[in-house]
């Protein structure tokens, strides 16, 4: 028999279930994700750092886990809440079972929970902090778990990037290992060695893999890297601010770095948290959402074309569209709640997307944004070489 486990919310609601993987206690903000597939990608997505994720999909663990589907080696999801945990793994791709994976990664998980009740609860009352307690005596400790849940600091105001970022600058060379994954990319746009510097605020590997697939040279740098340290040594053709956990408004350093890159007119791509940082650096504001967007079925309208993309989403903060600065143009909106999903700068080559063009998990509809970024970089380098050519010509005369 599995050990018991319980989940307590800060409002005092308690769910009982069974422990999967390891015993222990984990606290954090409880959010629900409605994706049907991709539990492993969710578990390894650093954007979930310090969060307890409820999966609404009925069965978790069926296909086990494998090395290729990890989105990060960094710490990510703190705890997992599900209805049914599969005792066996069945997939030609599986290497170890979910339970073993949870143990290795130090994730505390609870199964046999009425996840639908929990999801509706979070939907109606908003995301809130919680505590998973798993172990032989878990059920005796309702009060302790509620206390722990109440003791968690609020997500708003937290800069969490240093917990999940790489320690040192490093090249990234690995492309997509799964056939068909890069299929959604436009084959015509090739990066031809364009150099992209990725600020790692908890980057998902698939962002890096897809950049490699487009033919770019990729270097990841720690979140705290200053522009001056890089601009000459790495000479990036483009900068990407990654996804990641935390409250963007609290990340004043990162906002300042974004501003510095924008001032230098280096092509800029912000994904999720990176998108929010782009907005803040451009003078917009962000806000905390009631329970956020976490799933793989979110319809996003591309305003220029009227096309609808089904996107992967994972964010608890959003860019406030009410008083957007004049240099920011909305490019995408959520068809679920009308919230701002994409922006471009009018004055400098920069774009941001709130959802996840790298998917993983989720549909590939937004993958074209990588091509868009690529074209910005190509235009930029062409311009730069024209400038240099004309500069050289002037020097001669």
């Amino acid at each position, binding site marked *: 028999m599995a050990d018991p486990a319980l989940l307590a919310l800060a409002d005092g609601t308690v*769910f009982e279930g069974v422990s999967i993987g390891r015993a222990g206690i984990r606290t954090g903000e409880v959010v*629900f994700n*409605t*994706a*049907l*597939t*991709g539990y*492993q*990608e969710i578990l390894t997505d650093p954007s979930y750092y310090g969060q307890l994720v409820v999966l*609404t*999909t*009925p*069965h978790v663990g*069926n*296909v086990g886990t*494998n090395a*290729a*589907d990890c989105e990060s080696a960094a710490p990510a999801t703190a705890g997992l809440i599900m*209805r*049914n945990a*599969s*005792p*066996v793994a*069945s*997939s*030609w*791709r599986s290497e170890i079972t979910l339970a073993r994976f949870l143990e290795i990664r130090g994730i505390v998980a609870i199964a046999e929970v*009425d*996840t*639908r*009740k929990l*999801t*509706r609860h979070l*939907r*109606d009352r908003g995301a809130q902090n919680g505590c998973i307690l798993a172990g032989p005596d878990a059920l005796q400790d309702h009060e302790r778990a509620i206390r722990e849940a109440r003791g968690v600091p609020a997500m708003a105001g937290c800069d969490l990037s240093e917990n999940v970022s790489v320690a040192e600058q490093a090249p990234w060379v690995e492309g997509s290992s*799964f*056939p*068909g*994954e890069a*299929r*959604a990319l436009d084959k015509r746009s090739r990066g031809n060695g364009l150099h992209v510097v990725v600020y790692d605020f908890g980057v998902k590997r698939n962002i890096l893999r897809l950049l490699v697939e487009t033919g770019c040279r990729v270097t990841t740098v720690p979140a705290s890297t200053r522009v001056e340290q890089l601009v000459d040594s790495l000479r990036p053709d483009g900068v990407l601010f990654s996804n990641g956990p935390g409250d963007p408004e609290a990340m004043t350093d990162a906002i300042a770095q974004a501003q510095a890159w924008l001032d230098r007119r280096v092509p800029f791509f912000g994904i999720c948290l990176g998108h929010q940082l782009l907005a803040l650096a451009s003078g917009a504001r962000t806000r905390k959402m009631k329970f956020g967007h976490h*799933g*793989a*079925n*979110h*319809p996003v*309208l591309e305003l220029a074309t*009227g*096309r*609808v993309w*089904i996107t992967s989403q994972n964010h608890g903060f959003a860019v406030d569209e009410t008083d957007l600065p004049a240099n920011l143009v909305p490019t995408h909106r959520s*068809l*679920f709640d009308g919230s701002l999903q994409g922006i471009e700068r009018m004055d400098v080559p920069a774009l941001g997307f709130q959802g996840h063009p790298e*998917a*993983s*998990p*989720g*549909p*590939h509809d937004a993958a074209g944004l990588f091509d868009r970024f690529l074209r910005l970089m190509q235009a930029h380098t062409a311009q730069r070489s024209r400038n240099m050519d004309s500069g050289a010509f002037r020097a001669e005369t």
Partner: protein
Amino acid sequence: MPRREDLESILVIGAGPIVIGQASEFDYSGTQALKALREEGYRVILVNSNPATIMTDPEMADEIYIEPIQWQSIAQIIERERPDALLPTMGGQTALNAALDLVREGVLEQAGVELIGASREAIDVAEDRERFKRAMTEIGLNTPHSALAHTFEEALAIQSGIGFPTVIRPSFTLGGSGGGIAYNRAEFIAIAERGLDLSPTGEILVETSLLGWKEFELEVVRDRADNCIIVCTIENVDPMGVHTGDSVTVAPALTLTDKEAQRLRDQAIAVLRKVGVDTGGSNVQFAIHPKSGEIMVIEMNPRVSRSSALASKATGFPIARVAAKLAVGYTLDELRNEITGGRTPASFEPTIDYVVTKIPRFNFEKFPEASDRLTTQMRAVGEVMAIGRSFAESFQKALRGLEAGFDGLNERIPAGPVGPDDRERLENEMRFPGPERLWYVADALRHGWSLAEVAALTAIDPWFLDQIQRLVEEEETLRREGIEALVPTRLRSLKRLGFSDSRLATLLRVDESAIRSLRLASGVKPVYKRVDSCAGEFPTETAYLYSTYEEECEARPSARRKVMILGGGPNRIGQGIEFDYCCVHAVQALRADGFETIMVNCNPETVSTDYDVADRLYFEPLTLEDVLAVIELERPEGVIVQYGGQTPLKLAVPLALAGAPLLGTPADSIDLSEDRERFQGLVAELGLTQPPNRTVRSAQEARVAAESLGFPLLARPSYVLGGRAMEVIFKPAELEEYMVRAERVPQAMPVLLDRYLDHATEVDVDIVADGERVLIGGIMEHVEQAGVHSGDSACSLPPNELVPDLQKTLEKQVTLLAERLGVRGLMNVQFAIQDDEVYLIEVNPRASRTVPFVSKATGRPLAKIAARVMAGVSLAQQGYRECATPRHYAVKMPVFPFIKFQGADPILGPEMKSTGEVMGYGESFAEAYAKAQLATGVMLPFSGVALISVRDADKPQAIILARGLVDRGFRLVATRHTAEALRSAGLDCAMVNKVREGRPHVVDLIINREIALIVNTTQGREAILESRSIRREAIHQKITYYTSVEAARAMLTAWGHTQDFKVHPIRDWLSGGKGN
């Protein structure tokens, strides 16, 4: 892009009669499409030959044509109605084919009618295997490698490039006959040679076998702006090799990583783009190699399908409705997702937080001569769907909802040590799947087979096998531990796994009621969750509910006056769409009267399980336990059990005992009419006449009874629908045999023996009674004589030959019965009339199969009228007094699935075999009959040789028939005795040997295509067996045949009208004014 303003009127083609592979799901889809188009303000015209559909109800479209679905009649409709557009994607293959015919014949172009929903090009690419394959190659997708061979050498060469196993499919043989799977060279040589020989074009397709590959279906919707969504991914538990319609399937897909799921999504969308489906829903099927993940595209359907209906029910996303809106110009983001009350747009992908299991329902027992092994050709006649919060729960709910005598994973092999025979049986059942494979899988695991062994034999994904293993282990543990172990926590955990009370009772050898009491005392009760398409992310007011054992109940029952209607469960032969039609009508009538209506049903193919038909939908198995749980929660003021066929009717007495407030005719009257002995008393009391009969319980009793009754006899078990196991018996030896078979059945029921009335006319009467009045709904005279199941007979309303005096007698008798039984609502009575003597055959105080036909023929919605009666509105209050006989004729005609069951004998008898029906209206019986016959798809020859071979009793009739055929220019050939009879009547007739008389014989003639028409009647088990090859070969060679002289004669009178008939909307027929 908004609604198209350049269109004003749209013609929709329905799917026609229910056949295997094309069932009531097209009424569900079509009904949604009609509603969607009409709310946009278009003038909508419908053609469908199937009267038992909601879509053909007068209020569903502006004009409705119940006419044959063939290009000639549709051309007439187009001529009359001048529609701007034709929507062919709602009526299955039938509608697509008709649309392609209309294009080919130039009708659409000439009349300026635009094809919407799917272009001709898209239909062509999707349907033509070669073009499809080429198209897939062009976009870099794989299809199974295959090529055509015309010689044995070619076949070998192709095979060597493919490897084993190899599939061999001879071209143009019926139902894939002569084909097979070769695992080695010797087998390949044998099958290829046979196939080349059997194929009329000497051609075989040699194809890579994907046997054992995993199978997935994606339901894709695409709009004109190229927005694409995947509504649902369905995983087949039965891997490739079993038709998806015959497979157990689940949603969501449970054995795919996200990477694989997204790859399928990308490919499915690429397929739609390539094929060119730009406004609507399609289904794309894939096979995935379980060890390498390699993907093959199997096929796609550019239209709504059985799978799209299932996907709609599984997710709450109405694909047909959305597809119809896309066809008239909208894009997905302009449409709202109705189930969330429009809070979200339709341009999203539904996500679900439960598991849906579908299990097919088979009727192989009705075709004992045919093999019951499942293949790539669909043979299921219905399906059950169940929803649960885990696979185990959902699966076990489906098992009991199937109503195939199981309440869980019941043992097929008895407990105890298994002998070599049992081992072999188990192995065969797993390797060569039949309708009960998963039960045998459970047995194998019970008897100690390893998961790996079972996986190797079945190729079922180990994840599902592990789930079954766990259920089996739970059962074994419980059996060992006994009822003392059933403490509340244990009971709850078993209920969470989906175990029914009755299964637990069987395992513990106690009564179901004991488990029920224990469970209720332990406080273990289900809660109800909502289907909302979004896993709870958005609130919903839609009450589409399913039970589970968890914490929170979302049912929120209202305090309104409410009535609950129990549906019919999975379709099967004898209990099909007609009963769902009645249930929907009950809902509509009571809703209109201000009641809250609550539907309980588990059939995903139906209109009744569309979440917006009733106020509240409980998608639940129709067992006593599941129904009582809903009643306890909802506390309805009435429950209707008489509309869904035998399924809810069987619950009448136990529900009444449990205190459920049943509406209408009292449960005791139902029992009185079903219990043979009680019924005899009633007949005697009312002074009516029944064919002499006895109830017997053994062969000995049967012998004694037969002596006093005399042969022929009609034998049947009590309490059956659709004439299950009914037979006409001519000799003592046949009776012996019958009794031996009857006694072998578990839970053997008493057998009823009736004197069989030869050459009697059968009549059906449908009525509504309210305790004060009886409204005669319709009197239907059967074309085939008594002894052919009423569901398999053609019938005419008003009666074609029955004299008015006899009709009056029938009305009197029916009224007497209705009064005595206290009927409140519908009743159906069957009579046989022999030499002007009226015999009462059967009384059914419930909705009957003929209610939709009668309603369509007379314009009187009997099921609605009766539902209101049951809720207390009398006939007088509704304004119904007299029965007005229509001035036109309406003929109902059955369609049969024999073509799908290789080896099955197409002879008609007391056991029902038809899957559906069509209807024809005419100014005369002849015209109506002709149109019905055309609507069944039977092609009539106009000259050639007619083969006649009839039993002695039919010879006088056969002479009249033969004269008529000669007058029409046919030449005659007959078997010896028939030929003698015809010659002595002065007819010129060639003679041919019966099969046992030596060659060349009658079957040789048929195979050599020397025969254009066959009339063959026979009696007695031996004679039937002997002449079977004639009828089978007729099916094989697609030769028009009749197994009753009456039907052949009716056809002869109708002949002229098959070439020359007029179409009219039903409004014209019903108003009596067909002015063109």
